[in-house]
């Protein structure tokens, strides 16, 4: 991949699509939004898709005989196709969820339910026994760690993990001894929301297959920034969120290989996911409906579909190339300021434009406050990855993260503001 930025003209056109980017802050400062790793801004096409749905075809889907309901259903299922094709999945392999977290919990609870005998013989492959192992990594977001801890607590399984090296890269070399015949699940991130390191998925999938473990990919940070083809990656499950990929809040997706979804027992139950319900017992619909209980986030799914289409139109190669160039500029900016230390790779190979750092002697929250005062929005704290921070001996970092709409000028403002941080707190005077 070449690290070619969008041209000034292209970038201006992109930015014009995002109404929030025109906002000014306290004291009239222009906004420099470097918190896309937490949540992205949304282009007009996404907002319009939601509005158009509400103003033109809002109705309950998969239920009505009337025209609005038909139109709503069509728009909703069209969005599923848009999202599926964006990540190289079949349409029946995409389950709508509230967010990525909900997708991971869905898989973990389905395994719990299978362990309790739900889903019968077909679901036995998801059942865990005491002593079975679930392997995660030290780089995981809490969303891809805590649900597995809880699953382990409910079933008697044990959580083990692959470590992180000093550069913030996953210790792929540990797979051979951490992932064993006892491993039933290997859950790992495609890209860290802290270090920005992108995982080489192939050895994970290969090792999991060798021992017969299920792979679960946290694609929250990869899908918005890189071309992702889930079939080509060969993972069993994957999750991602709409709000991080230019889409609305309140929607995400769980990908599951068709034969797995077909065998998996439901988690949330209720309307629209059943076949026959009596007071005594219930039979369930085929996937993906089996996992979509109750009235879905229809407008949001349609918005997420529009976001996927928008990114596809820009071209994920172009997006990734633009962001690779931004990553280099961000790394350059932090390297230019003394007493700043980066958590994660300092080269641009296989990394996102997400840079977390500490400023010696200044707490991350205070760093963020000074940047905020210059109009620069960064995230501060542990970014829902306490173990990874502990691995590097810090409690909190500041994190600058870019997206397709980020400019070099913005990174220059960030660099300038960062330069003044230590002096403000009385250091280096």
């Amino acid at each position, binding site marked *: 991949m070449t690290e070619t930025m969008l041209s000034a003209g292209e970038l201006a056109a992109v930015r014009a699509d995002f109404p929030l980017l025109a906002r000014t802050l306290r004291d009239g400062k222009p906004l420099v939004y470097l918190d896309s790793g937490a949540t992205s801004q949304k282009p007009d096409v996404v907002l319009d898709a939601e509005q158009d749905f509400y103003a033109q075809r809002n109705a309950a889907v998969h*239920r009505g005989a009337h025209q609005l309901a038909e139109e709503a259903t069509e728009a909703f299922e069209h969005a599923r196709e848009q999202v599926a094709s964006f990540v190289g999945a079949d349409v029946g392999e995409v389950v709508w969820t509230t967010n990525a977290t909900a997708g991971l919990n869905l898989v973990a609870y389905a395994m719990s339910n299978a362990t309790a005998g739900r889903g019968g013989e077909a679901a036995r492959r998801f059942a865990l026994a005491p002593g079975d192992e679930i392997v995660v990594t030290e780089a995981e977001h809490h969303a891809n760690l805590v649900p597995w801890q809880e699953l382990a607590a409910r079933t008697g399984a044990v959580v083990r993990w692959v470590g992180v090296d000093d550069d913030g890269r996953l210790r792929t070399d540990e797979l051979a001894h951490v992932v064993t015949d006892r491993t039933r699940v290997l859950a790992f991130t495609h890209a860290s929301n802290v270090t920005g390191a992108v995982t080489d998925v192939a050895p994970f999938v290969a090792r999991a297959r060798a021992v017969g473990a299920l792979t679960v990919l946290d694609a929250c940070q990869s899908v918005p920034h890189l071309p992702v083809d889930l079939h080509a990656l060969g993972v069993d499950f994957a999750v991602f969120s709409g709000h991080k990929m230019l889409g609305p809040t309140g929607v995400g997706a769980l990908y599951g290989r068709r034969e797995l979804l077909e065998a998996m027992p439901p988690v949330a139950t209720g309307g629209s996911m059943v076949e026959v319900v009596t007071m005594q017992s219930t039979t369930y*619909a085929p996937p993906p409906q089996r996992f979509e209980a109750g009235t879905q986030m229809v407008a949001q799914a349609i918005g997420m579909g529009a976001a996927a289409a928008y990114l596809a139109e820009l071209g994920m190669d172009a997006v990734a190339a633009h962001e690779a160039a931004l990553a280099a500029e961000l790394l350059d900016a932090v390297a230019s300021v003394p007493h700043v230390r980066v958590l994660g790779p300092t080269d641009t190979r296989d990394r996102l434009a997400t840079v977390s750092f500490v400023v010696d002697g200044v707490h991350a929250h205070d760093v963020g406050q000074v940047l905020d005062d210059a109009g620069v929005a960064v995230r501060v704290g542990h970014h829902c990855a306490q173990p990874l921070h502990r691995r590097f001996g810090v409690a909190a970092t500041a994190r600058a993260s870019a997206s397709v709409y980020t400019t070099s000028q913005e990174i220059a403002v960030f660099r300038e503001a960062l330069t003044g941080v230590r002096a403000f707190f009385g250091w280096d005077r």
Partner: protein
Amino acid sequence: MTSSMEQLYQQVILDHARDPHGRGLVDGPADAVAGESHQVNPTCGDEVTLRVALGTRGTVPVVEGVSWEGQGCSISQASVSVLTDLVTGQDLRQVDEVAETFRALMHTRGAGLDEEREDALGDATAFTGVAKYPARIKCALLGWAALKDAIAKTGVAVPATASAAATTTEEPA
């Protein structure tokens, strides 16, 4: 009344719905191979149970009889009634072809198929208008899904079609 509505509820459909053929499960001839399937339309909860009796004509398996029971809307009842007429006496390859043709018809959004294919459908071409109403397509296909499953349950293999056989030895789906 809109014209799409008139196309949806053609007189053939209304007639079959009021007086459906093949309704009431019966046992087939003693020497027939029987298969039965129960299908639910999950969007409405309607159900059909369909039984098929297979015999042979020479070495070719044929449908000797179809009978069914169920509840559903006029589209679903008419569809299974028309199906009963269409497939009784046909060999399994023909049944498979007509079923595929009917499925294809349901994806034309009301435009219909070419004349040759429609001819094969007989009364079932009356369902062309259903394809304009996505919510009703499942109604029209409910009986066909049951037929396919019932035949599968007999364990009798559908002979490959001439064209399929030329290119592959795999059974058509």
